[in-house]
């Protein structure tokens, strides 16, 4: 059996900053404002259901799923809608959202109707993949094919981030129960929880439950991007997901640990997704794992960690490999926000660019077996047909190529933009 994938990198993980910090519930005051974005997932943004001046309850649905690939949005607080407008977003720059002034900070979310069919309940609760991809979970739970294995992704391979790790230790049982619910509902034979071997405490925690529940814990080698779905499936099962296809093609679905916890909370307790754990780390006085209401401004998270150490130069939302750099901290936490990382100038790598010296490091590092150095040339000269021929669409945008490049070529940046152009070509061809 193949165990592990080709390529990958071993960055400095920096997880010790927060690995031992239990998830701490962030507290809120009356009159504080949270800004809940209407688009926190891949697919169509939700349709707003409230108007200005309207009173909303914590857990109330304020955005309705629009289309199949979309999901609901709930208010994370009880309060008054003060305005509906454009919020800053790390992904798209601006996104429509609802600003709510908190009236009762202690309110806990109102329950959703749990009498519904499983998938509808998940949609009702607004659950999305919380590992970063934010794919609406109810869609993933409606596979058109027979699934034989459910893999729970506890790899958390991004450096700095520890929110999943803490969740695995502190909410072990909920995660397992959430996974069991999926397994039972979809009649999946096998359940495997996969954790990178740099998280021994998490592995121990899961192992304690092995007898009560029927599942397997798999310790994976620590290598980025072990948590990439295709890499994970290859490492755990030795199965290769075909290019352009979803894991279900090989009879697998993958869910993140935080997603399982959210799913458990929805099914067992009727709770919609209104909060998540976020690792706030880097150049802050006291790095922490925080339990945060969706819509909380990033600046509040930083304050909760005692503020900056030194002068912030770059703030990354998400992990340092695939996250987005934010131009402001006036930006709400969304369902996708796994981390807030503050870098000072001295923490950032030198980006002094030279010509490509054809060292081949990017080729060795690419976990998808691509040839980034040559693809870069096609991207620069806008030869998108060639880029397609070299399978740029197979790029998972993991950033390994850019990470290792001694010439500091912005490789993955080219592929992100290149892929969009290439998609257009593919669409044109299909229309012919």
């Amino acid at each position, binding site marked *: 059996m193949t165990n592990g*994938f080709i390529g990958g990198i071993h*960055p400095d993980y920096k997880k010790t900053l927060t690995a031992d910090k239990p998830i701490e519930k962030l507290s809120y005051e009356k009159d504080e404002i949270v800004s809940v974005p209407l688009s926190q997932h891949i697919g169509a943004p939700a349709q707003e259901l409230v108007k200005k001046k309207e009173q909303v309850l914590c857990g109330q649905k304020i955005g309705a799923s629009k289309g199949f690939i979309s999901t609901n949005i709930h208010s994370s607080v009880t309060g008054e809608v003060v305005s509906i407008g454009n919020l800053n977003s790390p992904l798209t720059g601006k996104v429509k959202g609802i600003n709510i002034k908190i009236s009762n900070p202690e309110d806990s979310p109102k329950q959703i109707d749990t009498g519904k069919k499983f998938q509808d309940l998940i949609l009702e609760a607004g659950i999305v993949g919380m590992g970063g991809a934010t794919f609406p979970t109810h869609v993933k739970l409606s596979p058109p094919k027979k699934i034989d294995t459910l893999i729970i992704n506890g790899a958390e391979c991004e*450096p700095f981030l520890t929110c999943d790790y803490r969740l695995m230790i502190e909410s072990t049982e909920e995660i397992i129960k959430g996974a069991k619910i999926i397994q039972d509902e979809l009649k999946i034979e096998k359940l495997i929880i996969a954790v990178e071997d740099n998280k021994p405490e998490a592995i121990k925690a899961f192992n304690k439950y092995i007898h009560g529940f029927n599942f397997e814990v798999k310790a994976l080698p620590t290598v980025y991007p072990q948590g990439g779905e*295709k890499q994970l499936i*290859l490492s755990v099962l030795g199965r*290769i*997901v*075909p*290019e*352009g*296809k979803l894991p279900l093609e090989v009879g697998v679905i993958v869910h993140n640990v935080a997603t399982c916890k959210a799913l458990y909370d929805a099914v067992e307790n009727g709770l919609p997704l209104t909060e998540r754990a976020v690792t706030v780390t880097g150049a802050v006085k006291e790095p922490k794992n925080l339990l945060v209401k969706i819509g909380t401004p990033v600046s509040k998270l930083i304050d909760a960690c005692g503020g900056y150490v030194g002068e912030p*130069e*770059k*703030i*990354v939302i998400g992990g*340092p*490999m*695939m*996250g*987005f*750099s*934010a*131009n*402001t901290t006036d930006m709400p936490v969304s369902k996708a926000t796994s981390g807030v*990382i503050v*870098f000072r100038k001295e923490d*950032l*790598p030198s*980006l*002094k660019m*030279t*010509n*490509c*010296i*054809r*060292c*081949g*490091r990017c*080729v060795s590092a690419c976990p*998808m*077996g691509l*040839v980034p*150095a*040559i693809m870069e040339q096609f991207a620069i000269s806008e030869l998108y047909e060639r880029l397609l021929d*070299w*399978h740029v669409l*197979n790029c998972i*945008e993991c*950033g390994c190529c*850019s*990470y*290792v*490049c*001694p*010439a*500091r070529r*912005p490789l993955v*940046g080219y592929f*992100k933009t290149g892929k969009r152009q290439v998609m257009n070509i593919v669409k044109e*061809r299909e229309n012919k």
Partner: protein
Amino acid sequence: MSENKLLVTFSPHIRDSVQTDKIMLNVIYALIPAIAVSIYYFGFFALKTYILTIIFTLAFEALFLKIRGRRITLDDNSALVTAILLAMNLPPASPWWLILIGSFIAIVVGKQVFGGLGQNPFNPALVARVFLLISWPAQMTSWIKPTPIIENFNFDSVSAATPLSQAKTELISNGKILTDFSDASAYFLGNIGGSLGEISAIALILGGLYLIYKKIISWHIPVSYLASFLIIVIPYWLFFPDKSLSPFIHLFTGGLMLGAFFMATDMVTSPITKKGQIIFGVGCGVLTAVIRLFGGYPEGVSFAILIMNAFVPLIDYYIRPESLGEAEKV
């Protein structure tokens, strides 16, 4: 607030610490054993050649970049690598003007006209070596006898043919090799005539292993190069022992080790994929063997590598590894 000028860039936000200049520096470190041996055997001649080549090469690089209005990028260390490799490809007692011309050819013709670092299809030091070899064959093949500095400070320019050239000459004039080269163990250490950087196989192997250990180069080119070379040379020697030097001498003399570990592995001018590198290495090995055994020149390494350099774009173009779960072409 200071946040107004937060830096926004594409991910990833962290990078490996290795940068171009460090890679080049590592190549230089790897060359130190060979440099040391050449200074040991050729003393002042060697020092002079290294110093002059470095001065001329860096000067041409800076001058050319200045003329083209580009940033002067001596700090990437790539010109320094070229300088040292060029010096190693020159006879120990090269006259200053030969070095000047060589430096010009290497940097200006071999590198900068193609666009500078990373853009040149041919190894600049080899371009210069072959150009000089064709234009000034006498100067380029006047070897002096190695004299360990601990024994003697007075270098007499007693000419000493390299084993390869001597064998070639005898073969051409007599149809077979007359000299008995069987006691050749000293060659391994560097006690032979030859270019500065060619003489000590052991020093070059050490340097090469360092580069592999440091992951600057991979084993693919050196191994496929040397293996394919031996696959031709060994049977030929077994069948025609009087027309061929022993594989041992072939392996450890001339530019083979320098070529296999430092010139063919020049990342800029070799294929980018491992599979491509093996094809390239085999091509170098076969061509080197064929030129040495059947060609007019005693030495084939430079020609072989330059010829294979020309095929690199083709190899890179056609040898695309299959990516994970690759779909049929749409």
